[in-house]
Structures are given as structure tokens and as C-alpha cells.
């Protein structure tokens, strides 16, 4: 899938958690959403994008969420 599409979708998820007062909760919320609703291949692709391209295009909170909490196995 095109990485742009995944970036857009991940950022949208991030937006929902934007106003969460608790940052850790917000990051966990983002990652849990991706873990529960995104197919493995999509999760791997976005994780690779964070690893290999510094997650360019992704919001900071989404990058931290992906690097800390995303399941790619």
C-alpha cells in the first residue's frame, strides 16, 4: 500500500488522541488502535517507515506511539 495513504490514516488516528491530557495514554491509545484494526502488513510498513525514513510526514506523537508500542509480529 502507498505509504502516503498509511501516513494519512495514522495521523488521523493521532488527531483523535490530540487532546488527551496524559501523553502516555495518548501514545498507547494510538498504538492500540493500529494493533487492533490494521492488518499486519500495514503495521509493518508504517513501522518500517518510522525506522527507515524517520517517519517523515507523521506527527511526532504518532511516531513515538509507533516506535514504543506498535506490535509488528
Amino acid at each position, binding site marked *: *500500500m*502507498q505509504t502516503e*495513504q498509511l501516513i494519512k*490514516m495514522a495521523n*488521523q*488516528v493521532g*488527531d*483523535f488522541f*490530540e*487532546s*488527551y*491530557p496524559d501523553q502516555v495514554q495518548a501514545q498507547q491509545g494510538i498504538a492500540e*488502535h493500529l494493533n*487492533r*484494526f*490494521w*492488518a*499486519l*502488513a*500495514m503495521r509493518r510498513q508504517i513501522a518500517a517507515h518510522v525506522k527507515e525514513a524517520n517517519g517523515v510526514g507523521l506527527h511526532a506523537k504518532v511516531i513515538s506511539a509507533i516506535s514504543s508500542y506498535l506490535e509488528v509480529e
Partner: protein
Amino acid sequence: MDDIKYTTHTQPVNRYDSDKDYGTPKKLSEKLVKLNIDGVEITVPEGTSIMHAAQLCGVTVPKLCATDSLEPFGSCRLCLVEIEGRRGYPASCTTPVAEGIQVRTQTSKLADVRRGVMELYISDHPLDCLTCAANGDCELQDMAGAVGLREVRYGYDGENHLKSTKDESNPYFTFDPSKCIVCSRCVRACEETQGTFALTIEGRGFGSKVSAGNKDFLESECVSCGACVQACPTATLMEKTVIEAGTPEHKITTTCAYCGVGCSFDAEMKGEEVVRMTPNKDGGANHGHSCVKGRFAWGYATHQDRITTPMIRKSIHDEWQVVSWDEAINYAASEIKRIETKYGKEAMGGITSSRCTNEEVYVTQKLVRAVFGTNNVDTCARVCHSPTGYGLKQTLGESAGTQTFDSVMQSDVIMIIGANPTDGHPVFASLMKRRLREGAKLIIADPRAIDLVENSPHVRADYHLNLRPGTNVALISALAHVVVTEGLVKEDFVRERCEWDSFVVWRDFVAKPENSPEALEATLGVKAEFVRNAARLFATGGNSAIYYGLGVTEHSQGSTTVMGIANLAMATGNVGREGVGVNPLRGQNNVQGSCDMGSMPHEYPGYRHVSDDATRTLFESAWGRPLSNDPGLRIPNMLDLAGEGKFKALYCVGEDIAQSDPNTQHVTHALENMECVIVQDLFLNETAMYAHVFFPGASFLEKNGTFTNAERRISPVRRVMAPKNGHGERGMEDWEITARLSKALGYEMRYSHACEIMDEIAALTPTFKGVSFKKLDELGSIQWPCDDANPTGTPTMHVDEFVRGKGRFFITQYVPTTEKVNAKYPLILTTGRILSQYNVGAQTRRTKNNVWHAEDLVEIHPHDAEDRGIKDGDWVGITSRAGETVLRATLTERVQPGVIYTTFHHPESGANVITTDNGDWATNCPEFKVTAVQVNRVHQLSDWQKDYQSFSEAQIAFTGKKSNKIIKQPA
């Protein structure tokens, strides 16, 4: 009608008999009254009419103007009775019971009076009983017999109505005034049952007659619901099919296959031919009412376009080859195996539809999970109500509406957000209008002035919050802000029933000044004071209920709005009893059911996540196959991947993604890139034009199964005729086709009847534990959860406790959509539905419903039109970032300046050519309701439409059928 709580002393009366007419409606008073009718003692609720009480003791009083669906009127004077100690002859239909009275329904005096009444009626009535369409089904005839009418002394030479002309304008029923007895049942049905007020009695005395506002029926306000036809005791209002075919000889109760109201109908049959569909009085959702679709628009099942033979082809540019079932199934199976070997199982998937029965959806997802070996299964709810499933699960704990439809009769304040019940859910709308006429308050949040705003007789919205499309979350936050900052929160409810911590976070969030109606006034385009007053009314007006539709879900923040709605209901204590609640109005008949049945890629039946080990083990052992614990692809993911050549095989049952999904050109590009598209449908739908295998399906009249409506009501679908898709073999119900494909793929599904599929569902799904076809036969319908604790189902959910335990509040930050207007695309296009057509129109377009809506029009505000030199009826091009299409314009102030509106019932309209693939953050539900566009006058169809026309003509020719598509062209 349900069990009644009282019995007579002499004769126990346990159940109402739906075949009987009790003359006047059932009363529910707690207070009981005892009386004696013809020597039989009976105790009935106060307010019951003498006529109704008599019927309960088995005594039938002659009657003409009364029927138990309507309030009595007392005009025919046939139902007179004698009451000991009272003078005169009161009408039993309008006289309520009183304690201790002695009633006599048959005396020689009464017999005389009744004969006199009948004589007058018959003297102005044609005596062509033997050739009348109502012969054998006419109450006038019955009454003439019942009162023993033997002669008519007045003769026919005087003035009479026998020569009045018939009104044949309605495509489905005839109005023959010569047979009218002016009982006004039709007029009252149109008012009370339907709420349209299209009919009146004009003139007085002998000159009085029924009139549809001095127009013919088609030109009038009539919406063709059929309530008047149902109520008419004579042949005056009569279904044309009965006039043609004669009276039916048997009937089978089934469920409408159109919208999410899920009306119960009796299919009235002559052998294997349907003569008419009549709404069933016992129907839990409709109580004997119907709309034009379910009542009349079932002719598509035998339409000439229907394809009844299996077909295959190598490429979509080839002609279709008609083959045997074995050949089609084996070809499909070999292709699936080939693709699995070549590309892997992740390149395959299935799509089910909300038009399928629960049993069909269940076997399809089973096939994909257990046999394809992937969780790549999705359903069309993806593009409509997936945010409902998500949002309500998160907040309340169950992905379903909280109430029954009847609950609206206990509501004091009704808030409708992004739904248009009179068009989309007509039978429920009639009930709602009845409650509104009784005085309930109405708040409507919709960019467009739907009919309920001020275009429905005796109903008017107290507040119409005509917000800008795409700002629902801002509105919900503003409403919540008022509730929180003005001290209107029901704190005891929240403390007892909800997670307090989540409430505090939410409260602090919505209380922020930036969420106030004043701060959001410019965003919403609605006066702050208006929003404040609406919020106050909602929070303090008594029982407040929220009804919402696709205007909530089909947005980039659809799930957020659903959660916001649940927040608001919890904060004001409006969940868990009758009259309140969060009520998603589902578009198609089985949206609820198809979601319940595990057709989403991340969950098994009963909304259990695929990663949940206990559930997965349960299904693995029941199905005997290993299952994946990884969520599968959603429809938009499948399409994105297909466009890139990474998704190759699709089994699509009853769904038409090429018409109903956004950004048509993206969809068709994806389909063109697949190697095996299998479509199972009644017609060569738009998706089938890109298919390699076509399995002809069975219509809802040809199969057994169940549908689950918007109130979680599981209702039986019963086979009234054999499936027409046999092609030399025995016809197959759709689940049988899926099972046969499964067998060809090496996995046998051993069911001999749809009921065994339901038994399997019940065994594996806690909320369906107590459901079986046998129980459905007994109870008529069941609202899930149905388990040991609730063996007859659960009308109202979350009564003492939320399904998730404590209700959870979520912060709902408004994030404007990225689909923004600018100089190039200055208008917002939003989309909706119309009463006479259904969804992509595949069924209703193939009926006479087209007389009401033959083409999709685009509504433009006169200001916007004037700026562009557009006049009513002009052809206009609508251009968005995704594409262009051309439709005819209609100018109306229903839409606000800056907003245009259209429906998408006709494929050539290409409404989805212009919608973009923007979608909901949580579920990818497409943002159908907001597309930035420009419109301008044009003189020819768009390129897409021209291509579409030649492509679809070629595709239809490939089946050997003739194209009868006539695309209207700009002059």
C-alpha cells in the same frame, strides 16, 4: 399483539389473534373494568371500547367504519348495541366500557336498524360482487350477509355514484370511487398511521367523497405507503396485483428486504406467485404499517434483467459463457487455488452485504477465515455504519442501538442528527411523527431542511441546527459544553453508572472556552443562543432520545461523533430505560446483522476481536481449521492494494462496491487489476461488470434466514417460492452456493437448512445463545441479547449496568476535515436518500417506483445557482478533486448557500465519481457527506458518463441481454 394480562371469568383469553379485527385499538390502562356482554362476563382495561371487549369474548358486532388500527369514528351506525338501563342505541366502537354494564349486541330491534343502514349503503353501491376484485375479501359484502340484508327498496334510478371514474394514477393501487362507502378509514389511516394527511372527505351528506386534495393520487401528497389500501373495507382502494390475479389463497410471514426498520409482512400467495405483500399486525417493528418499498416494490424479483444462470469468463473484455453450476463452482475454486499459490492468501478476501441474511453473512465470513485462511473479510457496513459499531462499543460496550422503535412513544425530546427518517426509515418515521403530534419536542441537526423540519403536517422542529457539513463534532462539543457548564449533568447517574475518571477528563475538556457555542458559532454557522437552547431542552426536557444516521457516520470524524453522542446521552442520564437512548438508524435491512455476524476483518461473530485467544480457540475447534489472530484488510485497504497489484481475488456476495463505494474510478481501477472477481447477485450489478465469475443469487422471497434490524430485532425471512437460479438443477439459497464453493475448495460445510447455521451461530455467540428458528416461529421476532438471563430477548439495553460495566466517556476533539473548500472547489456536496428508491437502486429501479424518482437531481440554493447562471432543470457539471459528473439541477432553499445535495440511486449519475477516498479515522468509513466541488452549466455528459455508457452497454451485451438503460442526455 402480545399476550394480554387479563382473562375473562368464563372464557380465558390468552392471545390476540392477528387475523381478527378487534374494531378499536387495544388499551393499556392498569385499571380494569368488569362488564357483561351477551351474558358473558369479561374484565378489560379501562378505555377499551365495547366493540373491542365484545370481540375478546368471541362476540363479533357488525361494523364498517371501525378497524383496530385506527381510533373509532362512529359514522356508519352499524355497530349499535343496547345497554341495560341506558336509553337509545350507542355505537359500540365509540362507547367505552363501564363497570357493571350489561350489553346486548343482538336484539330484533338492533337487527332492524342494522338492516336499514345496510340497505342505504347498498342502494348506492354497484351490485357486481361476482366480478369485483374484492369478492370474498369485502367487509361490505360480509356485513350485508351478517345483518341478513335480503332486499333493497330504494332502486338505482335516483342519484348515485355508480358512474364515478377510477383513479389509476398510482402504479400500485386503484381508487374506484363508485365503490366507496365514505367510511373515512382511508382518511384516518393516512393521518393516524402514516401521518401524511393526503386524504380528506370533501363535501357533505350524500355529496361527500374521498379526495386526495383535488388531485389524482400520484400528483397528491400521497407517499404510497398503502395504509389506506390496507384500511379500506371495500374494493375502492385496491392493489392492482389483486385486481389482475384475484385473491390470494395462502400467506407466509416474512421480513422486508429493504431498510433497517425491518417490517414484517405477509406474502400473500397464489401457488408460487406473490399476489400482494401486506404488513403484518404482529410485526414488532411495524405493527401493521409499511412504506412504498416493502409494500409494493417487490417486482424486481421477477424482472427481466435478473440473471439466473451461472456464468464465467477469462477476462472482463470477453463475453460471458453460461455454464453449469458445477463448472462455475469448480472454475471459481481453481482460480482461488491458483491465486493462493501464486500470490499467497493475503491476496484474497471476501465482501458480504447488509442485504444478505445473517446465515449468509456467517457462512461467507467462515469461508474466508477458515478456508481462504485470512481475516480479509469486510462488509458494506464499512461504508455506512462502521463508526457506530466502533463508537458504541468503546463507550457503552455494545455495537448496537439501545432501544426498541416503540420506545419513541415515551420520549419527550427527540433529537435527530444527520438522519432523514421520513425518507430513509419511513415506517419508524410514522411512529415518531405520531409521538411528535402528541407533543414531544424536536431538535434536528442537519445541514439540509429535511421534511421533518417543517414540511410534515402537524410536525415542526423546535430547533433546526443547520450546521455546516463536516462540523458534527464541533456541535456535539458545544452541546456538551452547555450541559457541563450550566450544571445540567445528571451527576448521580454518572457517578453510579459511568467511569468517573473518564467523565472528569471529558468534563474538563468540553468545559474549555473553545468548545462553547459562542466560540464555535462561526465554524458551525449556527447561532450560539440556538445551540444553548437546544442543549438545555435536551438536558431538561424529560426523556430525551437521540436518533442518528449516515449524516453522523459518513465523515472523517464519524466515530468521534458517535462517541460524542454517547457521552451526551450518559451525561444527561438518557440511557437504560424506555423513551431515551442512542439510536443509530441503519440504512439497509441487515446492517446490524451483518456486523453481528462477524463480517468485519477484526472480529468474530458477537464483536469479539480476532486476537482474543479464547474466542479464536472456540472457533478453531468448532470449524476444525487454524485461524489467524491478525486483523484482516478492510474494503478500502483491499482496493488500495488491488490497485497496486497486490490483492487478486475477491468473493463479493450481494454487494456492489463499484457503485456504492467512494471514488468510483479508484474502485474500478482496483477491480480491473484483480484476476478473479466472483460476484453473487440477482443482477449484473456494476461490480459484476468487472467480474470473472457470476453466481446467480436467490431473492429474499426464495430463501430462509433471518435479518436483524436497527433495534437488534432478529426476524425470520421465509422462503415463499423456489429459488429461480437452478439452471437445470434444484435452485439454491445463497448460503448453499457459498457452501458448495467451500466444498470445492476442500472444506465441507454440512448444513441441510439455514436453521442449522443459526444453531451454530447460537452455539458460538453468547448474545445469540437462545436464538433458534423454532423460537422465532413462536415469538415472531427476538431482540438480542437473547441468552439464559433473557430468554425472550432484550428490548432495552444497558438497563442496570452498561454492557462494558461502567460507561466510558471519551474526549471528542473537533478536527476539521482535510476536504476543504477553496476558490477552485467552493461548494460542499453532501449526499442522501429518497423514499421511493433504495440504496444503489438495483432493486427499486427495477420497479414502478421510478415514477417518483426516475433520475438523481442535484439540489442547489438559488443564490449559488444565480451566481453561476444556472436555472431549474439545467444540466450542470459537478467537479471535485476526484472526478466529474453531470446531473440536472433543481433549485431549492432546503440546502443552505454553499452546499449542494444529491442522491445516488442511479449508477449513471456517478455520484461516487466525485466523492473522495477520505474516510473516518477509526474505521475508514468514507466521508460521503463532505466533498468540495464546483458546479457549472454544461451541455454534455461528463467523460466518465460517456465511458460508463459504452462500457456498461458492452458488458450487458456480453450477457446476451439487451441494455435498456436510457441515460438522459442534455439537449
